[in-house]
């Protein structure tokens, strides 16, 4: 997809409100990352208990409720810390998204924590809290409205476009083959 000036449309979207697909993909990545980290930590704790006490611990029996509580706290910590410290989680960093205040200025740490605290509300209401991402003018979910935040595209799209152009021009760096065309870019005629 190209604009009238021949420029890929996504280059101009940096700083704009992020849409549903990117945000959902970022959330999916975060769920996987946080869950994997939690499972690793749990395995580490189990191993430590086994080494120290000689008894193996199963998290799937009587202590499943406590494990669920710990998991909930972990999720809160993961999202809260990431938003408070950097304004983005691992998934958001991967998808090039960032949480900002509703007016577009940088997020205050406490607002990041507040966003994490109210985030479950969007899930609890049968996921309806997320509908705002689709239908609201500013693509803000319920937890965004409550915490006074918004999610924007924040990545170096101009540099990415240059990289795509470099690959499409058929000048790969040593050790790599000729590149495929970039998304939204026209395929240039073969040079030489």
């Amino acid at each position, binding site marked *: 997809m190209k604009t009238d000036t021949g420029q890929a449309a996504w280059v101009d979207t940096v*700083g704009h409100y992020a849409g549903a697909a990117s945000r959902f993909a970022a959330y999916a990545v975060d769920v996987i990352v946080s869950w994997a980290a939690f499972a690793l930590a749990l395995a580490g704790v189990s191993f430590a208990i086994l080494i120290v006490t000689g008894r193996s611990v199963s998290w799937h029996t009587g202590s499943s409720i406590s494990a669920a509580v710990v998991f909930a706290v972990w999720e809160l910590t993961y999202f809260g810390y990431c938003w408070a410290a950097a304004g983005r989680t691992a998934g958001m960093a991967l998808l090039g998204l960032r949480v900002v205040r509703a007016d577009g200025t940088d997020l205050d740490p406490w607002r990041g924590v507040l966003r994490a605290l109210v985030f479950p509300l969007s899930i609890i209401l049968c996921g309806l809290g997320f509908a705002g991402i689709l239908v609201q003018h500013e693509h803000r979910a319920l937890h965004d409205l409550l915490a006074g935040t918004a999610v924007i595209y924040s990545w170096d799209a101009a540099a990415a476009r240059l990289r795509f152009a470099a690959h499409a021009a058929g000048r790969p760096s040593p050790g790599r083959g000729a590149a495929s065309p970039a998304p939204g870019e026209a395929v240039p005629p073969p040079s030489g």
Partner: protein
Amino acid sequence: MERVLDLVVQSIDVDALAQQVDVDALLRQVDVNRLVQRVDMNAVIEKVAVNALLDQVDINHLIARVDIDAIVRQTDLGAVVSMSSGHVAGRAVDIVRAQGVELDRLIDRWVRRLLRRKDPGLVAPPALRNAEAVT
């Protein structure tokens, strides 16, 4: 004496006089190179207010007209970019992000059509919108 001069000047038909002058022949006799050599270019440049001149140039408009793809194709800039930024993971991330934005735009278009929204909507938060307007 002045009165006489005034009368003489008034009686001259300047237009008719100018028509009789062969300007081309006159210009042919002018040695432009010699003329230019006598001009102190440094003094001329010093008199030019470069900053005022640059203020009037719309840099963004100029940059928008630059065909980056063509520059990359025709120069070694592409190789430099590839070598400086290039690993497969980085490229994969670029693709994921770009595809995500394209998909977002597609979904947004469908939702707007479904909700019969005519207005273009807000594309950026106020602070970032203002920053865009400035740059």
